[in-house]
């Protein structure tokens, strides 16, 4: 089960993953973007951890909402609203004192639905959705098959990683990078890579917490 404490350790592990890859994320964003994605994501992670450490949230939905609002507060273009919306929308579906595997997968699905309401980007456009959509699908399939939380997160991470890696072969059709056309092919998308790192952290946070 994902309890409040486990969710906190998932958040810290995700933040550590992003921090360790800050330069890589900015470098990936430098192809067609501003080269600031790593900086923006690290600021988002700082805000996310502050929301956890404030310990004002007494329940999982409250904590997810606080995390989402904190991430939205990062003045970093679309990154804050998109990642923030993911957590805030998760909170709408995350009832109860703890999330079981199905509850967690359902919350991820609600998070994805929220993100998809905010952007016109589709799978294949070389965006964060190319990692997030398969991750959420994999989580749901694992949960529907009766897998425990840890396996749900492992499936989600593996799908997110494969999805992010797959963006290397794609031509950007959305966001600023679409303007460089074919030159966008060859490197993975920075936002999709961030999604993969977040899920890697979620998995680590759950396993390290025992």
């Amino acid at each position: 089960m994902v309890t409040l404490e486990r969710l906190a350790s998932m958040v810290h592990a995700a933040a550590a993953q992003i921090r360790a890859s800050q330069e890589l994320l900015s470098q990936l964003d430098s192809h067609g973007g501003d080269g600031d994605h790593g900086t923006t994501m690290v600021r988002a992670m700082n805000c996310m951890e502050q929301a956890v450490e404030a310990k004002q949230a007494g329940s999982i939905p409250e904590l997810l909402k606080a995390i989402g609002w904190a991430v939205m507060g990062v003045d970093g273009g679309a990154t804050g609203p998109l990642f923030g919306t993911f957590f805030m929308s998760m909170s709408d579906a995350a009832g109860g004192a703890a999330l079981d595997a199905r509850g967690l997968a359902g919350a991820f699905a609600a998070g994805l639905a929220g993100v998809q309401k905010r952007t016109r980007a589709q799978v294949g456009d070389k965006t964060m959705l190319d990692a997030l959509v398969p991750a959420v699908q994999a989580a749901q399939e694992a949960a529907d098959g009766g897998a425990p939380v840890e396996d749900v997160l492992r499936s989600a991470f593996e799908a997110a990683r494969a999805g992010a890696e797959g963006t290397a072969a794609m031509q950007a059709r959305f966001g600023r990078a679409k303007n460089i056309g074919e030159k966008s092919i060859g490197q993975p998308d920075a936002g999709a890579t961030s999604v993969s790192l977040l899920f890697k952290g979620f998995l680590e946070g759950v396993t390290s917490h025992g």
Partner: protein
Amino acid sequence: MAMKKFINNPDDLVNELLAGFVLANAGKVALTGNNLVVRAQAKPTDKVAVVTLGGSGHEPALSGFVGEGMLDISVPGEIFAAPGPPRVFEALKLAHRDAGVLLIVLNHEGDVMSAGIAMEMAEKEGLNVKQILTHEDISVPSRQDPKDRRGLVGCFPVIKVAGAAAEQGLPLDECLAIAERMERNMATLAVAVTGATHPSTGQVIAEVPEADMIVGMGQHGEAGGGQQPLKSADETAALMIDALCADLGAKAGDQLLVLINGVGSTTLMEQYLVLNGVKKALDAKNMVLARALVGEFLTVQEMGGFQMCAAKMDEQLLALWDAPCNTPALVVK
């Protein structure tokens, strides 16, 4: 080539530029809350408030449009990056009044998202807020599907006429209708001759080959086609105003406002030459250069080039354009 800019710690860049901006414009603007730029003297609350948001690094835009006759509040974001929804919502709450609030949003992914989320929250709280999106960059050809058209310096005339309407005490619906009419009747095209760097990351955000210019360059120098050998001021002015007039469906006798907005390192001298070229091209079409303005209003760091905005004006829009204002970027007495 290494970036040559006078900056301190990149993390402090936005805070420091806002502090300096307010010092330079004491008596006109002030900072409040979480880096919201407001007027030094607030407008009476029986008049509509006008608010906008957008990334920093484009000075004097957008906070330079705060002041009597134009904006009430601007929400500056990080360098080239929109502010998050919480600060936009903070601004809407601060601006809230019975007369209502008009939120002017430039069509860029981050700005639209932050504004959209802030608008949803404002609605939940029962705030009276209307939103207008500016999307007038004709480097994306379709007027029918303007979602892909970016908001460039055309935000300036929209803010000017909407701000003047609000200052005159017109109700929110009329302010919005005026802003929408201005938006529908304007078009912008950008041209770049040299690139720029992101001041925090040092990332080159636009490159232009030595002997070329790129017509259709976006606000951050996103490539957009239109690369060609550098032309003279007159030739460039003619090809750009022709494209703008075609997009606007302008015809002989139409009264046009033309704005030449230097984006960084193109000199004022060149900008005047371009305007002169525009006048010649319009004369040849029997169109009227009713109003013109030249200068740096929305910049992209040290990029070379300019944005040309043209708008078909009617009597009311001209009167609102001529109305007094007192802002860091523009003073009309």
